[in-house]
């Protein structure tokens, strides 16, 4: 293509560069500021360079439960990721054939993605509140002591909180799997079946390896979306705090760069997950290029 670049190419290149700067500039700023010296403030200039605020963070900033929040977000994220991958793959397989109610499930998935998070979050909170009230009134009505003495609420990180996260991560996972299976060539499976593979064998040895890179993608969405989720968690996690909720609370009360340190750690974990995911996909594709085909190599 020896064709000369038009003026619009250069103009749009500048626009693109500015957009990328706009996208990353602020994050780079707080990463820099989190290395602020012990006497440094919330803005520039840098007053020295230290890890002071990270050690401050590690000691818990004097704010209770910061480390708990980190741990809560982490285990919630892992659980949401595993469930998202499994449920999305199954749903993807289901939608390859026609079944009754197919459209309804599809539109419910889309709706779960685009309806306002505050509405979903409040709905889940109300559902659990009504459920709690029902359990308690049953306990009172029949004098069941175990309920009267011990039952507080069914709401919690791994019940309502996990559910709220799944309403957000699942649509992404399911839509990705739909796109994957739309482009999936059924000839591979037919070949496997013709060679006598059972349906489990066909899935395990033919379908699964082929869709593996996409599953890494689904897992990436599952973890990062859950790790950063705030709007749907806000009313639905119960007494526990997740990291984004904690961060949001800290913005009003903390006036030192320690909040930037927390932001840097959180972003660092996100980036680590993204890099691992992208690296895995690249690795799988490399291996495929090397081992994928024995065409032309002849039979030994």
């Amino acid at each position, binding site marked *: *293509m020896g064709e000369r670049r*038009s003026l619009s190419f250069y103009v*749009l*290149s500048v*626009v*693109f560069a500015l*957009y*990328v700067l*706009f*996208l990353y500039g602020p994050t780079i700023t*707080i990463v820099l500021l989190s290395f602020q010296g012990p006497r440094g403030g*919330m*803005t*520039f200039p840098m007053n020295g360079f230290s890890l002071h605020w990270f050690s401050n963070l590690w000691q818990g900033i004097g704010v209770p439960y910061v480390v708990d929040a980190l741990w809560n977000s982490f285990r919630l994220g892992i659980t949401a990721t595993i*469930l998202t991958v499994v*449920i999305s793959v*199954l*749903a993807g*397989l*289901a*939608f390859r*054939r*026609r*079944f009754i109610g197919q459209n309804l*499930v599809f539109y419910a*998935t889309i709706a779960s993605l*685009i*309806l*306002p*998070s*505050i*509405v979903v979050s*409040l709905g889940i*909170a*109300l*559902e659990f509140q*009504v459920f709690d*009230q029902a359990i308690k009134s049953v306990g009172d009505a029949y004098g069941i002591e175990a309920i009267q003495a011990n039952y507080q609420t069914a709401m919690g990180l791994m019940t*309502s909180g996990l559910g709220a996260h*799944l*309403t957000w991560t*699942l649509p992404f996972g399911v839509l990705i799997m*739909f796109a994957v299976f*739309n482009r999936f060539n059924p000839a591979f499976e037919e070949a496997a079946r013709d060679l006598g593979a059972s349906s489990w064998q066909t899935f395990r040895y033919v379908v699964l390896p082929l869709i593996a890179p996409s599953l890494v993608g689904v897992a990436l969405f599952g973890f*990062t*979306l859950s790790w*950063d989720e*705030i709007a749907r968690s*806000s*009313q639905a996690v119960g007494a526990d705090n997740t990291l*984004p909720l904690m*961060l949001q609370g800290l*913005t009003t009360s903390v006036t030192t760069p320690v*909040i930037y340190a927390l*932001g840097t750690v*959180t*972003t660092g974990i996100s*980036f680590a*997950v*993204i890099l691992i995911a992208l690296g895995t996909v690249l690795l799988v594709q490399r291996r495929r290029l090397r081992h994928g085909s024995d065409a032309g190599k002849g039979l030994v």
Partner: protein
Amino acid sequence: MTIRARWTSYWQATPLVVVLGIFFVLPLLVMLAVSFWTYTGYSIAPAFVTDNYRDAFDGCASQFPTLCTTFRTYASTLKFCVIVWALTLVIGFAIAYYLTFMIRSNTVRLMLALLCTIPFWTSNVIRMISWIPLLGRNGLVNQALVGAGFIHQPLDWLLYSDFSVILAFVHINTVFMIVPIANSMARIDRSLVEAAYDSGATGWQTLRHVIIPLAKSGIAIGSIFVITVVMGDFITIGLMGGQQIASAGKVIQTQISALQFPIAAANAIVLLAVVLMIIALLVRFIDIRKEL
């Protein structure tokens, strides 16, 4: 297909149906029911009253044509919607166009697209906080402007204002425009564009009569995303507006923290209705299943 094969789809879809049923459909139904309930200080009680809705639209009829609180809040939220939608659309379209039509190497395109999408996988709250050291009274922007002698006093409207709210919305949501629009554009047959040029169309005419109509579906999907996010938002408006700017979502959040659950539910139903109407308008432009 054997009978067993026919049942396979049903059990495979079951986990998704169960999760969406328990955590999405049922909660919405409970919310609809609770919006007609009554409440005391500590619990909610089944009833069928319309007080909550009357409360939500308190004074809207009597004060007319002066806008009541709810209408004012919705007007303000819609204003943010329109501004953010226009900005993300223009920026998102330009970026998508650049990536699709101006980058010739597939590897470079993939790298640049990743560059645009990676922030989507990081925390929105942190991306909002990141603006504070830039836009604050003593922030970098004010330091630079004062230092360069453009202004004598630091600007106050940079942070915790309509400006910073819009900035953060655009910052976070432009990716929702880029991805679907680029996806639509990637499907445009290049020979159509070539044909337009060969027939003597200018770049602008090609854009106007070939590319935009063919990218319509992506534009609509992106618009739905951006508009629904902004309509229901309470986090960005809260954080970047210094908790001073009202929005439809924030009203609901305030009522929840005051434990006025049925009123919050009624307001949520109203918000849901408004959002659904907007989606119904935009959905005419797309066939979602063709986009996957």
